[in-house]
């Protein structure tokens, strides 16, 4: 994943008009395509995903404007195929927090944390369900 500071061409080396080509001559994703390029370096808050609470409703996957939810196909206990959210693509997530907003679980499976917070730390301190007094 390249970042802006890793690719500083000289003034006479760019495509004119700052035009970005999606593919190289061989039909592979070019270095200008966001597939190969980190476009999240200005994020200040990040969503952290808690697999233990997630119910796989996929609302975050639908709502994410940058398609940053990594999914894998699994077979559920009823024998049907299902998309399983496994994590967040931090190379493209801008930290907009839309996923947190749409997450429907009583305790959110997605919460925003400062960019510098360690994910394991964040998960260890996740809010707990309050026990009701009987």
């Amino acid at each position, binding site marked *: 994943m390249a970042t*802006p*500071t890793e690719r*500083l*061409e*000289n*003034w*006479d080396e*760019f*495509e*004119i*008009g*700052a*035009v*970005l*080509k*999606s*593919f190289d001559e061989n039909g592979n994703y070019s270095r*200008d395509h966001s597939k190969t390029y980190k476009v999240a370096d200005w994020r200040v808050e990040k969503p952290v995903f808690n697999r233990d609470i997630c119910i796989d409703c996929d609302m975050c996957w639908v709502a994410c404007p940058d398609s940053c939810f990594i999914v894998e196909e699994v077979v559920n206990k009823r024998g049907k195929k299902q998309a399983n959210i496994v994590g967040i693509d931090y190379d493209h997530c801008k930290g907009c927090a839309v996923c947190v907003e749409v997450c429907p679980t009583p305790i959110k499976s997605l919460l925003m944390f400062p960019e510098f917070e360690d994910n394991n730390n964040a998960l260890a301190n996740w809010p707990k369900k309050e026990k009701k007094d009987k």
Partner: protein
Amino acid sequence: MAEKYELKTKEVWDGNTAASHALRQAQVDVVAAYPITPSTPIVQNYSSYLADGYVDGEFVMVESEHSAMSACVGASAAGGRVATATSSQGYALMVEVLYQASGMRLPIVMTVVNRALASPLNIHGDHGDLYLGRDAGWIHLIANNPQEAYDMTLCAFKIAEDEDVRLPVTTNQDGFLVSHTAQIVEPLDDETAYKFVGDYKQKNPMLDFDHPVTYGAQTEEEWHFEHKARQHKALMDSPKVIEKVFAEFKELTGREYKLVESHNMEDAEVAIVAMGSNYETAKIAADEARKAGIKAGVVCPRSFRPFPIKEMAETLKNVKAIAALDRNCPMGTIGALHNEVAGAINAFGQNAIITGYIYGLGGRDTTVAHNLEVFKDLAMNAEAGKRVTPLQKFINLRGPELSFFKVGE
């Protein structure tokens, strides 16, 4: 296939008609425009030619000039030959998108009919809009009469679309004095004109689905400077292409254009530098001045951007006194043309006395007599060997004399 338009070898056209026929003959694919006085007839005529089958193209009606230039940017990025026309307030509304067009290196041609900027509202000619687009990264060509409006517009496509240039171009003509003044114009026939302009050569077109591209990248502090420097170099190198296109045009038509036009400059001691219709008026005044014993000449930059710094200095190397005539109010300094000319002669170690004049704002008449007065001022400066007239004067302004930096003040 578009119908052939029957033309005589000599037509009586105003500047607008001339420019619109050039757009028709170049077979522009897309014209997106929001008509505004005095350039309205250009796009109005174009849409008539289109409706009557003389052009294969699209006319896009939009809700503002900002949208007009935006649609032009989209159509040009998509891979078509694109043109539009505007004036004054419309030009002002386009300015943001003018920078987008040049930054994306899109060879759009815009026929500008120069008109004053409000307020107060005024529909007549001055160079307020031309100066507004000065730093927008476009090539600005100057046409001083309807024939030149036609010629420059045809040349503009060839210059803009050259693979070494790929920059948008405006062709400028004075509102009403050129745009609505009918003169004899010698057009090319449709086939010859199109052959001169040539088929449109696409570069990174968005409609090439096998090679998808993104236009409108964001480049922050890591890249923006490099992109802008490259764009500037394309403009600085463009005179070579402009001269090449002018040479081809001369071969075809016999009409010769140069980066710097001049009249009576071989032995001139004093010179007026002006753009637009007043160049023609000043030529008559120079001939009159010579009868009165003043060795007068007139100079006009054919391209305002790129500014022909070296050629301007070369043309003025033997004169003793220069007047730069700006048809725009510089609002707090000397005129832009004055600045350019002073910079050019200074850069090449020349030390002619230079003064500036503000004239013709909002369509105010500037006659042969007014230009003669300027030549008389210049003759005084030349004879004294130093500046004895004010640095900045106003021509044909009512009321007590308004001037700045009088000698001895």
